């Protein structure tokens, strides 16, 4: 089966700082692929490049056969990106925000309505969607944004630290949301420094540190390889 996303020798420099030193990985259809690593490892830079926010210094990214440098608009049509510190328009009601975003992806009104209805279900915010986003708690905002990212059933959802700043209950709900959606054929590329979360969610993971992928595979295979109980220990041993 052809991968949804293929990253080959991806490099990114910020002046003299080399944030990515040639990383490669693939995301298959319907799988959750996790990038794990500490802060500053290069996770967000990788996700930002794939979501067309940053331009790569070198290397190749192909998504559904399209090249990132030549067809960034094709990426934008089929990819949903949830940044780590994203927010919603504070003066917009939650429902209006979903409507606003849905129209960019929908080809007609009825499709836009379908997206919004799906988002209402995903978010679980109910009546609170009629309130302005500025009145939402961090957890509610995150749910709204996740619903926005998933409502179009993108070919690839890129989620940067999806449970960042959330309490335990909200984190669990968000993880269930993500897990549930891949059953409908959505591929997910997520990053987190919470390795236990990634272990719970991901079909396959890549360990990234200082712009280099140290190893990759299923959580189970990695644990066996490094003779560890969890991915945190796997990561520590991989770094060593």
């Amino acid at each position: 089966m052809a991968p949804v996303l293929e990253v080959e020798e991806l490099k990114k420099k910020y002046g003299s700082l080399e944030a990515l030193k040639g990383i490669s990985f693939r995301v298959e259809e319907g799988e959750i692929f996790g990038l794990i690593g500490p802060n500053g490892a290069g996770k967000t830079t990788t996700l930002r490049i794939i979501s067309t926010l940053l331009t790569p210094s070198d290397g190749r990214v192909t998504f559904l056969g399209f090249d990132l440098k030549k067809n960034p608009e094709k990426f934008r049509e089929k990819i949903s990106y949830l940044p780590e510190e994203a927010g919603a328009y504070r003066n917009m009601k939650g429902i209006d925000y979903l409507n606003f975003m849905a129209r960019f992806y929908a080809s007609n009104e009825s499709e836009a309505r379908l997206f919004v209805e799906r988002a209402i279900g995903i978010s679980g915010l109910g009546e609170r969607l009629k309130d302005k986003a500025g009145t939402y708690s961090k957890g509610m905002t995150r749910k709204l944004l996740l619903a926005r990212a998933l409502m179009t059933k993108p070919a690839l959802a890129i989620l940067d630290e999806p449970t960042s700043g959330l309490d335990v209950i909200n984190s669990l709900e968000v993880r269930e949301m993500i897990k549930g959606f891949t059953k409908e054929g959505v591929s997910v590329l997520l990053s987190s420094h919470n390795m236990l979360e990634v272990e719970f969610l991901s079909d396959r993971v890549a360990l990234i540190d200082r712009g280099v992928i140290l190893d990759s595979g299923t959580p189970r295979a990695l644990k066996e390889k490094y003779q560890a109980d969890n991915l945190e220990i796997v990561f520590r041993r991989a770094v060593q």
Partner: protein
Amino acid sequence: MKNFSHLLIKEIKELLNKQLIISLVVMLMIFNFIGNVTKSEMKKAMARQKIALLDLDKSAISRNIVAALNMANFIIVEKSGEKEKVVNEIRNSDLDLLVVFPPGFGQSISSFQPSQLETYSYLRGISPIGARKLDIVNAVLRATNDFLFNDFLKKKVPDLDPNLLKAPIKSREFVVVREQMAEGSASMVIGSLLAQSFILPIILMVIVMYSAQMVITAIAMEKQNKTLETLLTVPISRGSIVTAKMLAAGLVGLLSATVYMFGFRNAFSFTTSDVSQALSGVAPIMQQLGLTMNTQGYALFGISLFLAILCALSLATILGVLAEDYRTAMNLQFPLVFLVMIPYFVSLFTDINTLSLPAKILVLAIPFSHPFFATQNIMFGHMNLLWFGIIYNFLFVSVMLWWTARIFSTDRVLTMKLRWRKKKVVL
């Protein structure tokens, strides 16, 4: 196109929020209040002036002068008694001027000796309009001297018109503008031009400042609310995002400026209407001199203004990208405000053509300057300067838009920041 209009509507809604509408309404109310206060003060200053008069002379001449002052549009409140007492009494009244005819005043005049009447002006505060009341001292003296002079001449040479003796030389004034010439007063023509153009620099300044402020705020708020990254990943071109932001800012800025100007005009309408009324006779002279704007002139002025607004919007967009939040955005507006204020004050207080060459180059290098001088250039036929402004602004806008589009299509839209400590732009 569908996504563009969708984004444009969202941008307009974001900018045209409750806070902006409330601030515009409050501004209109403040203007209305200022207008009412100023109008009533002006009315008082323009009304027949009340003056107190103490006639210690009681001669025929002094009585005649009192009668003449009455006829010369003054309301005379006659006082009697000792001078010191009257001077003190008026301190506590609403009268601002006391005229005293000292004893022997009529006698001195009859014997052609220098005569003095005394005037006491009561200052009760300072205001430009209130200061006009003090002119009545001169008006009283002028009216008194006129009366005495005419009276004397009538007695001595009954057949001669006193006015002919006072001003034996009459002049015919002509005004020349380029190839055109018309009979009339140059000061009236200048007065009429200034009265008509009084409001224009203010309109220009407000439009440019409002539009720039809107676009800086729009981008800074996207950054502050952390919505910019998401917006940049939706399926819409970066060019459309920039254009929607600039267009929305331009439209809302124009609307705000219109409301502002409506309030301003209402508040200060007395000034322009009074002057226009006084100078209405100048219109045919102006027409004869070609000092009126035709359709082509208005079109050229419109192009000049449109390009200046685009310059402001493109500059503001780049400044908006540099801003990290709303607070920084407010600070970043200062350079723009400063650049608008320079041509504003130059257009109010001086003629661009009389500035020294370095000063002229400096002013004309500011893209916002050109519409400030466009009407003057059109009316006085300085077409080279006008076209220079249009071409300069066109090139400026092209470079700025190209740069803005480049910033938005690269990493810089997210990574460009102003670092105050290092005082440099990090790209």
